[in-house]
């Protein structure tokens, strides 16, 4: 995710499987953090703390807010009693430091009841209306539609959704030759600001 020219990545501690099979290593407690690639220094900065710890296969997605703040979405796996979705916004962010404040925390179980895709979901937030818009496929329709989910904490937990298009070349379980569902989820760059930068 690009912010003030630099790019921030969600990253995890690397495990070296020396002499051990992958099944012998507990990866559920792997350290997770942000990394910034600083395009001025042309190198990665130090590990930056996230405001939560995510476990294996939980959804963590980054988004930017008006080109100067970063936001991060974390959704727990559906196996827990509630499916908490948290969104945090940076209060101060530099390639070597970050601090966070909570933007939204809702239980998604009564709303969608599924976990947003951990590889490809994308989102943006509207600070004025205090809502988040998350893009993913609609699993209740066998992932047939790309959908925008609007989630807010106001009014006792606001929720709405709108179809934004039908998935082309829909993957059907057991079929071959179709794109898998993750490649159909629309990655959205959601806060485009026009620029006069010459690239020609």
């Amino acid at each position, binding site marked *: 995710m690009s912010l003030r*020219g630099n790019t921030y990545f969600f990253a995890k501690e*690397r495990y070296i499987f020396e002499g051990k099979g992958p099944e012998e290593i507990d990866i559920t407690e792997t350290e997770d953090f942000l990394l910034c690639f600083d395009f001025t220094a042309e190198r990665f900065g130090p590990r930056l703390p996230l405001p939560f710890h995510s476990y294996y296969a939980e959804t963590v997605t980054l988004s930017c807010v008006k080109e100067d703040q970063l936001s991060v979405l974390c959704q727990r796996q559906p196996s827990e009693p509630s499916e908490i979705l948290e969104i945090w916004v940076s209060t101060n962010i530099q390639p070597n430091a970050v601090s966070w404040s909570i933007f939204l925390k809702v239980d998604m179980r009564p709303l969608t009841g599924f976990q947003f895709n951990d590889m490809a979901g994308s989102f943006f937030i509207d600070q004025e209306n205090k809502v988040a818009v998350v893009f993913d496929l609609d699993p209740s329709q066998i992932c047939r539609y790309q959908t925008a989910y609007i989630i807010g904490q106001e009014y006792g937990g606001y929720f709405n*959704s*709108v179809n934004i298009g039908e998935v082309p070349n829909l993957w059907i379980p057991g079929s071959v030759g179709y794109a898998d569902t993750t490649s159909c989820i629309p990655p959205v760059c959601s806060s*485009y600001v026009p620029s006069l*930068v*010459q690239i020609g």
Partner: protein
Amino acid sequence: MTCLKTVRSVCKKWNALSKKWFFFGKAKQFLGFMMMDSRVCSLRFDLRKDLVVEPPSIKQVSILDQIEVSKIFHSDGLLLCIIKNDTTRLLVWNPYLEQTRWIQPRHNFHILDCYAIGHDKNRKHKILRFVDDFLPVENVVFGYEIYDFSLDSWRVLDVTPDWDI
């Protein structure tokens, strides 16, 4: 900006685009880009104060309609487009100025490449490209390099990661 004619032309485009895309009325508009069926589309999403949700407006970008794209990255008003099934070139696009530029690799790009586009404090734009994975056939594929728009060249970076992105 080199001459008044360019400024005028750009201002004209800005006005046209402002009317078309950036009109802030009662609804709050979010403008972005997304992929639909390997095509780049512009997305305009209106969020009304009363939170009544209208379907967003999605339009295929005509200037890129002959190009199948697998991923897009954004920074500072520029979009980096990764071309589907093509490891010989990348496309950078400034939607506002309607400018495009093809970028060639040092060697071919890799299908597992990750990318980022950004700029330094002098607003010199650059692309980060890296591949860091294990493939049963090729074993470890590894490399970090950076492309500088002003120099039109790639340079290898010395990176020793103890993390996975």
